[in-house]
């Protein structure tokens, strides 16, 4: 691990100002960042520890939604009574991710900011435009079974690994931030993560030093909520494909798919086709898909997972 310096921030604004400087990074749970620092894939010169910021509460919003502090641990968010009752898709997604030990440490904001688990990103001996911009992409033409089938580019076919973010996308969450100059803003989760394009090294639309302070959920939308994750093991594995769904009794609803793209994959045009069934929804979601021979199964698997989700919701209704 490279040498770094360290400070504890006392307020969100101080933290953002400190992290706005070149080479600085926030650390919260650290479960992804420290792993990458050990491998020297991340080499921050300075760590801004944000654990002392009082951003670990879950509070109702005046509009009837829920405001989740950036430092709320994944296990606490999954277990929150209001989340279990009103946003079960979010509890389910969180509980499908990582292990008990990791969920106890990983935070809401850190989960959104985690890096891809593309094996070529993790292997410094391989070309990777996300790790070393301009070096190329060894994943393309390599072992692609786990990698993206849609929204990818000639520069990068990595996926975003989060389960939580897929549920937040289906719930239309808002990401609240503070910038180094003290300005605050709120980004729709849909605009938070980026597609790789020609700049796969940039995962999100946050500015340098911009600190996530909370994620806000709109008022509960009811419906039959589920998160179905298909993976190589029954537990503690990243998704091959996952489906977060909120299906209303009349068959309308929303779906977002994980494990297939550089961000949670949701299209309002696909949602609109839910009453037509899984095939129609998948046709819209994957219209622009460009899978490899090794991961073409993900398109079929996503359609079948959607079909299973819709069948279950009909039984429940």
């Amino acid at each position, binding site marked *: *691990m490279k*040498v*770094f*310096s*360290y*400070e*504890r921030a*006392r307020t969100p604004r*101080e933290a953002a*100002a*400190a992290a706005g*400087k*070149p*080479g*600085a990074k926030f*650390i919260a749970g*650290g*479960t992804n960042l*420290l*792993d990458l620092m*050990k491998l020297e894939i991340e080499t*921050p*010169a*300075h760590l*801004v*520890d944000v*654990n*002392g910021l009082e951003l670990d509460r879950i509070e109702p919003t005046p509009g009837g939604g829920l405001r989740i502090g950036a430092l709320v641990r994944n*296990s606490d968010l*999954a*277990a929150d009574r209001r989340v*279990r*009752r009103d946003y*079960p898709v979010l*509890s*389910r997604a969180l*509980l*499908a991710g*990582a*292990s*008990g*030990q*990791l969920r*106890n*440490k990983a935070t809401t904001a850190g989960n959104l900011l985690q890096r891809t688990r593309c094996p070529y990103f993790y292997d410094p001996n391989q070309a990777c435009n996300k790790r070393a911009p301009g070096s190329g992409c060894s994943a393309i033409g390599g072992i692609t079974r786990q990698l993206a089938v849609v929204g990818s580019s000639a520069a990068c076919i990595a996926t975003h690994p989060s389960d939580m973010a897929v549920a937040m996308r289906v719930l239309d969450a808002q990401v609240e931030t503070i910038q180094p100059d003290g300005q605050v803003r709120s980004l729709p989760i849909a605009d938070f993560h980026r597609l790789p394009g020609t700049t796969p090294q940039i995962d999100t639309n946050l500015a340098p030093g911009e600190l996530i302070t909370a994620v806000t959920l709109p008022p509960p939308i009811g419906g039959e909520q589920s998160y179905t994750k298909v993976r190589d*093991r*029954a*537990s*503690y594995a990243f998704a091959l494909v996952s489906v977060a769904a909120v299906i209303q009794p009349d068959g309308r609803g929303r779906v977002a798919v994980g494990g297939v793209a550089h961000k949670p994959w949701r299209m309002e045009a696909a949602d609109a086709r839910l009453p037509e069934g899984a095939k129609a929804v998948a046709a819209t979601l994957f219209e622009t898909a460009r899978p490899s021979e090794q991961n073409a199964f993900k398109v079929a698997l996503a359609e079948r997972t959607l079909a299973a989700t819709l069948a279950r919701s009909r039984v429940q209704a």
Partner: protein
Amino acid sequence: MSSPGDSDISRRAVLAAGGAPVAVAAAPGLASGQAASPETPIRVRISLSVNGQPRQAQVDLRTTLLDLLREHLKLTGTKKGCDHGQCGACTVIVEGRRINSCLSLAVMHQGQAVTTIEGLGAPDRLHPMQAAFIKHDGYQCGYCTPGQICSAVAVLEEIKQGLPSHVTADLNAPVEASDAELRERMSGNICRCGAYSNIQEAIREAAGRLT
């Protein structure tokens, strides 16, 4: 939870490049908090409670909680397996919660309470979970065992608190220590010898005695 500020350095402390911890007076703007490119390892004094005892050590800032426990405090019961949060051999209980000690910096645990396998029990006064692992032969080589036991003790507490898991059928109903629940909750602890069925038996027995 104790505050990270309960330490020998203030919350505003900035560990300047190449030197000992430097406490900076509280002032807006973090003038001294620049992201320097330090090349000399920075040392920091860590004070925390381990197994009920106050402990201190002067360590490189890069030291993980796992390396603090093993290399500095000589508590070698906690094991280093993968060192990447994948195997669970390093599982310890911090402020009542199990975590991977390999994926946490020691400096982030100033003032906190850590329980390791040594704190759960000893040969002459075994923790019920340790006794159950022995009775059911819940190991072969034993390397993953301290992590398995720390994790299992925390798992039963999580079930007692009613925290749901991936296999909990009803998120709003009480949680039971069923075999499916125990298996799912222990998935972050890998056993290369494959002693899983006996580990399961041990935890099931301890669940009956502890909860």
